[in-house]
């Protein structure tokens, strides 16, 4: 048999021993820590990536939320503004109406007052005229009846007129 394909006992034994030794030492002191460290690092990297992804999602969620909030706020603002405008308009129109009514009422009152005052004033004037007339009449009468003769004449005249 060709020596190349004849396994020698010595080399078989030494290879078995050496490989077994190498396997156990490397398995315990090299492969275990190395594979452990690689797996651990991969896990941490994956974890970090997942976290980053989650953060990104959270971020986009927040952005969306913000946008919707802004939109909502904008709509609300518009609503409030339009309402305010309406209120303003109604207030203004109301005020105008009120003012109008009040004005009319006051004018009416003023008219009534004026009329009253006019009546009072007229009454006053009438009184004054009456008083004056009476005073004048009195003065005239006084003047006329200053002397006794005249008074007597009148009395006699009056008496004459009385027909019994």
């Amino acid at each position, binding site marked *: 048999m060709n*020596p*190349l*394909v*004849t*396994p*020698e*006992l*010595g*080399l*078989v*034994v*030494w*290879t*078995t021993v*050496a*490989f077994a*030794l*190498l*396997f156990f*030492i*490397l*398995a315990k*002191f*090299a*492969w*275990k*820590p*190395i*594979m*452990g*460290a*690689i797996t*651990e*690092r991969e896990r*941490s990297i994956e974890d970090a990536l997942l976290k980053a992804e989650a953060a990104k999602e959270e971020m986009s969620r927040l952005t969306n939320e913000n946008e919707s909030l802004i939109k909502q706020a904008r709509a609300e603002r518009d609503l409030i503004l339009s309402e305010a405008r309406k209120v303003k308009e109604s207030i203004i129109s109301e005020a105008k109406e009120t003012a109008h009514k009040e004005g009319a009422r006051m004018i009416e009152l003023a008219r009534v007052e004026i009329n009253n005052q006019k009546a009072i004033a007229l009454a006053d004037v009438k009184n004054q005229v009456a008083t004056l007339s009476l005073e004048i009449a009195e003065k005239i009468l006084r003047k006329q009846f200053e002397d006794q003769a005249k008074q007597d004449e009148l009395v006699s005249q009056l008496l004459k007129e009385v027909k019994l």
Partner: protein
Amino acid sequence: MDFRPVLNSKKITLGIVLSVFSLFVSVKAFAFQEKNAAEPATETKEEGKFDPTETIMEHISDSHYFHIGGKLAMPLPVILYTDKGLEVFMSSVFEEGEKIHEGKYYKYALIHDKIKAVTGEDKTEDATAKVYDLSITKNVASMLLSMVILLLVFLSVASTYKKRAGKAPKGLQSFLEPIILFVRDDIALPNIGYKYARFMPLLLTVFFFILINNLIGLVPFFPGGSNLTGNIAVTMVLSVITLLVVNLNGNKHYWAHIFVPSTVPVWLWPLWWVVELLGIFSKPFALMIRLFANITAGHIIVLALISLIFVFKSVAIAPVSVAFVVFMDVLELLVAMLQAFIFTLLTALFIGTAIEEHHH
């Protein structure tokens, strides 16, 4: 367990490993000088002939010496388990097969780089002796070197992971992490499924063990160049591991598919059993042959191209040879990674089919 002090002195450790290697080298070199001085005639005579087959076979098969260059070689420890007891000595005693070593129990000779128990000086084999060669050969030394490299690299990377928990990878860690992730995401996960984590240590060890040894095999100078993953014994052990892991983890669907296939008529079952049982062994067998053949073929081609220079005995052929060798080496670099990938991928695939829950 804290490896930091070890890792801090990584360079020192490497230095020690290399200096131990070079210690043996210097001793051997001295020994060879003596020998060359004694026998100059035989050397010149042998230089005339060049046998590429012999050279190539010598390079791709295992050896009791770790050749460095020229006649320089590092002797390796010989460990023999005989029926009488254990024998341990350095391979330098054989002086490249020239001498017979008188051991404690038997006399030994190195015949075609194999240690045999012999009766006397004539190198006839001692039939009564039962000798099992458990020596640290070139391939074993190379494998130990690869183990040292793998342990230094991955224990240091593991400590970096502990130190820099949760941080981005750095340095060697960032070079190896994509490969580890490749094994996990492209080999283990798609083939095994969610239960992949249990088999990751095995797949990673197999992948890097094959890869580093393929790469060491491509290094043309000492301490590389050994044909470890192109050795049938090594690929056999690796594929037996695959066989065991696959079948020990096989769930009831896997075994039911083999022994009580509901879609197959009962009279066909015996034939089915034969085919399926053959399949159990043929799959790892294919793994064994694939890795062995690919790596060995690569080594043979590179060595054959280099041998061309010596076959033609001309320097003019060298540029052509070197150009082809560079091309082949680049290709082999791809094959080194590809074979490590395929072996791991198929192991994962077999495990996947054995533990698959849903069956059809």
